[in-house]
């Protein structure tokens, strides 16, 4: 083996190392979306709307944006309840950024999933609904969530 081929090998090895480390640093900057304790309120039979709650965590190193939510249980939107001088109002949040190492908590009187046009086949005590959370970076995340009464 001459010096030139030695150099070639060293060069290739270095390139491989550089590529690998570049890949690594890229991977470090990915968001990582996880969901926790999701549930949907089984509404009293006369109600045409209901809410869902849970936690969306981003344990990754980059932010991600929740772009869209769909479900087999009905039409669904991300809503936020806000109280201003004794009056509660709900606003539709079309999309929301979840920063790295942070979480979006959906709970009563705050952020919530707002369901309408409820599917009578899905809305049965103890059954599960499928939720598709579409993120800008992480793509579509599918979760199965329990429907149960809150009383």
């Amino acid at each position, binding site marked *: 083996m001459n010096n030139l081929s030695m150099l070639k090998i060293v060069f290739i090895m270095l390139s491989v190392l550089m590529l690998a480390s570049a890949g690594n640093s890229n991977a470090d900057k990915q968001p990582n979306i996880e969901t926790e304790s999701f549930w949907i*309120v089984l*509404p*009293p*039979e*006369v*109600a*045409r*709307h*209901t*809410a869902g709650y849970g936690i969306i965590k981003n344990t990754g190193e980059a932010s991600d944006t929740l772009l869209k939510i769909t479900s*087999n249980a*009905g*039409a*669904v*939107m991300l*809503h936020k*309840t806000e*109280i201003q*001088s*004794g*009056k*509660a*109002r*709900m*606003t*539709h949040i*079309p999309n929301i950024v979840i920063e790295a190492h942070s979480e979006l908590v959906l709970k*009563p*009187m705050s952020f*919530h999933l*707002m*369901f*309408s*046009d*409820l*599917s*009578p086949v899905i809305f049965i005590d103890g059954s599960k609904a499928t939720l598709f959370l579409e993120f800008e970076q992480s793509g579509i995340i599918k979760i199965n969530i329990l429907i149960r*009464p*809150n*009383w």
Partner: protein
Amino acid sequence: MLNKLATLAFISLFSCSSFIVTAEQTLPVLSGVGGDFSAMDTNGEAVEFNHYAGKVVVLAFGYTNCADICPFTLGYLKRLYGGLSANEQQKTRIIFVTIDPEYDTPGHLKSFIGHFNKDFVGLSGSQEQIDYIVSLYQAEYNRLSVLNIPTQNIRRVNPKLFADDEQAKEDNASLYSHTVTLYLIDKQGLTRSLEYTGTPVEQFIKKIQQLINE
């Protein structure tokens, strides 16, 4: 008037957090908030608010399609009522007034409220009756604009054929913004305190007990 109400609410919130240890609290009459009115109970019978004279009343506004706020409020009221003794419960009435009488028929209201506590009183009525009650309590409600909802979300995922107008009406259930104040009313029908689901239940119970013992 609304500013006054907000100030009163603020003062009452502030005062209860500052004097938790005080056994007896002064609960001054909040003049200009509340009064007698006519409505319809969950059996479809006409009822006058004066009918509850002699009971301590906690009155709230809401509607059955509320989804997030009202079920939470009723859950809170359930805990509040459950914290009273049987004797105290007998001397107290929890009243839920709908701000959506078109959708919330007495039957709807009965079924909705029954999920939380069968003792709770649901009141509906004509639109005029409801608007009068809302104005008496210096409350507010607004229908949320459908324009806020993007069309892809209105898309029906469960298409239905409307058998009749009643069915069509049910499916057009609206969403509203509304006052979430909990009005504490004494045995003479006078409003004595404005509370909120943020009030610790034990504190609220003390106030109810105080009014029962007056």
